């Protein structure tokens, strides 16, 4: 007699099951815009596209925080760098209109350079101290964006940059409705599919990095930096690499954001954004890709869903008792506290992290 758990394990290992799951996921993700559009309206397709952008961001931060264990509270700066680079090089602001294929790698590279720029002076810092410096860095970038409109107008200050070129491949603009095989693809669908493709690429790169010589070096530094150095890991380079890789994901995401929105302003890159991205990583499960994705989807969708609190009150009580905007933050905060109380290692933690947090005492004694 085989135990149900054993059968479950065998079933999970079966490659045919894995392929079926992947196929199902692929169909689901491809059909998602059509389904959400039909079920909840066009606005939710846009939210889905944003969720994908945030997944890229969160996976980038996950490299820094989850893999290498470096607490970065200014991550949104890299998002801003990518977004502004795209905005400045593809808008009437300077009259430059570079093509997308050149811009996206440029966004990644520039963000990467900023990652190293931030990483280099913080290498000796750990934990809280690192968090404070990165927090300052995030604010510095934002304040630069606000003030770099004089004496030479580079960023157009608090007004931001407008009329950014939509993403286009040659003559194929994502901002137009296209017809393919008799099916209509509105602009937001096109963006959704592009973001989906790039998100898959980011997931792929993350997975490969995690399970590699570099990924192990990151984990070693996260676990014990002194021991890692004694084992011959160049902690400086490996940490800078984590900052650079994480930042480049942020830069790509920022560039896509600018092309999608058509408008960027410093307001989009406040400290609260950094905190939200960090929440996505921590809530889902640090260092675990499916967890991070789940955390991101929830944190993007939940505030949007809570907008319906207004109409719901209207329907139930005949009038709006509490402003939904206030309630949203309240419910949102409550949900976060509950999750952290009930599942401190995240909603879907990696097996390693679960051990780390569940067996905190054992880990401590193992190091004595």
């Amino acid at each position, binding site marked *: 007699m085989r135990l149900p758990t054993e059968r479950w394990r065998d079933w999970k290992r079966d490659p045919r099951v894995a392929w079926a799951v992947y196929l199902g996921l692929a169909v689901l993700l491809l059909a998602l815009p059509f389904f959400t559009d039909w079920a909840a309206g066009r606005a939710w397709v846009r939210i889905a596209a944003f969720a994908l952008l945030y997944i890229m961001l969160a996976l980038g931060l996950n490299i820094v925080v989850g893999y290498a264990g470096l607490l970065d509270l200014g991550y949104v700066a890299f998002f801003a760098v990518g977004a502004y680079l795209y905005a400045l090089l593809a808008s009437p602001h300077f009259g430059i209109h570079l093509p997308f294929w050149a811009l996206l790698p440029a966004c990644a590279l520039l963000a990467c350079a900023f990652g190293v720029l931030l990483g280099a002076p913080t290498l000796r810092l750990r934990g809280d101290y690192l968090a404070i410096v990165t927090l300052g860095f995030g604010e510095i970038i934002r304040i630069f964006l606000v003030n770099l409109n004089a004496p030479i107008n580079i960023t157009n200050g608090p007004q931001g940059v407008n009329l950014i070129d939509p993403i286009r491949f040659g003559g194929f603009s994502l901002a137009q409705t296209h017809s393919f095989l008799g099916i209509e693809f509105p602009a937001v669908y096109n963006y959704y599919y592009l973001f989906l493709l790039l998100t898959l690429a980011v997931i792929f790169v993350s997975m490969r*990095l995690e399970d*590699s*010589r570099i990924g192990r070096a990151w984990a070693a530094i996260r*676990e014990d930096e002194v*021991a890692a150095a*004694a084992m011959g*890991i160049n902690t400086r380079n490996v940490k800078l690499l984590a900052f650079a890789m994480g930042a480049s994901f942020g830069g790509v995401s920022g560039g896509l954001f600018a092309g999608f929105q058509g408008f960027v302003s410093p307001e989009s890159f406040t400290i609260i954004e950094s905190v939200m991205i960090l929440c996505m990583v921590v809530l889902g499960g640090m260092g675990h890709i499916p967890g991070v994705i789940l955390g991101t989807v929830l944190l993007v969708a939940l505030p949007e869903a809570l907008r319906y609190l207004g109409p719901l009150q209207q329907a139930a009580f005949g009038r709006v008792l509490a402003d939904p905007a206030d309630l949203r933050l309240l419910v949102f905060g409550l949900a976060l506290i509950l999750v952290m109380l009930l599942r401190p290692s995240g909603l879907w933690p990696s097996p390693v992290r679960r*051990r780390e947090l569940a*067996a905190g005492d054992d880990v401590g004694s*193992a190091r004595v």
Partner: protein
Amino acid sequence: MTPPNAAVLDVTGVSKHFGGLAALTGVSITVKRGEIFGLIGPNGAGKTTLFNIVTGLYPPDAGEIAFNGARLTGMKPHQVAECGIARTFQNIRLFANMSALENVMVGRHVRTRAGVGGAVLRNAATRAEEAAITARAYALLEYVGIAGHAVEPAFCLSYGDQRRLEVARALATDPVLLALDEPAAGMNATETAKLKRLLERIRGDGTTLLLIEHDVKLVMGLCDRVAVLDYGRKIAEGAPLEVQRDPAVVEAYLGGALA
């Protein structure tokens, strides 16, 4: 390749102060290729400080360290490891949440090359390197006798096994000199005897050993030569039996009255 009996590690006149405390004052030791060199002394004598200076954790205030033809003074820990010194820690410092196998695989880092490109593309060279890393790590776990625990997270291992795992991880860096900081601390007699056999085997396979140890029986039975530190100074050096009879050593350990 230096001939046997040539000096592999040369520490000359090393001093180190921490604020007003002189942790080491003009300490010189020479470790010869293929020997087991013991570093003993009462608590606070500066043994671990000397270890930390040799492995690049602290820079010395004065003095020089030469190893295998290279000047180690001022090198970072990872460069020292690359030169061929691997160490273990007095307070075990494993990567607690990584599996035993992964711990040893991290040790291979310094002898392997794959970067981000290799990791993402996972080309033939990277796959071959990863396979070699895994195979070598597993072989090392077998070598120290804990292959049965390969997939367990390091913190789940028993105390003695954790010490062995640290040795395996250090050996993974292909060291010329293996530096062990109190490897037998907290072990019972059986475990210590097993450890002694393991260390003899490692020496037999061509690695020079430098160890700090409190267990006098282990030191006397294992080491070819020992140096004794007391209050940051070297007070004796030589074969274990000579050193044991040295009045300065007896005084350091048992106090002036008996000397």
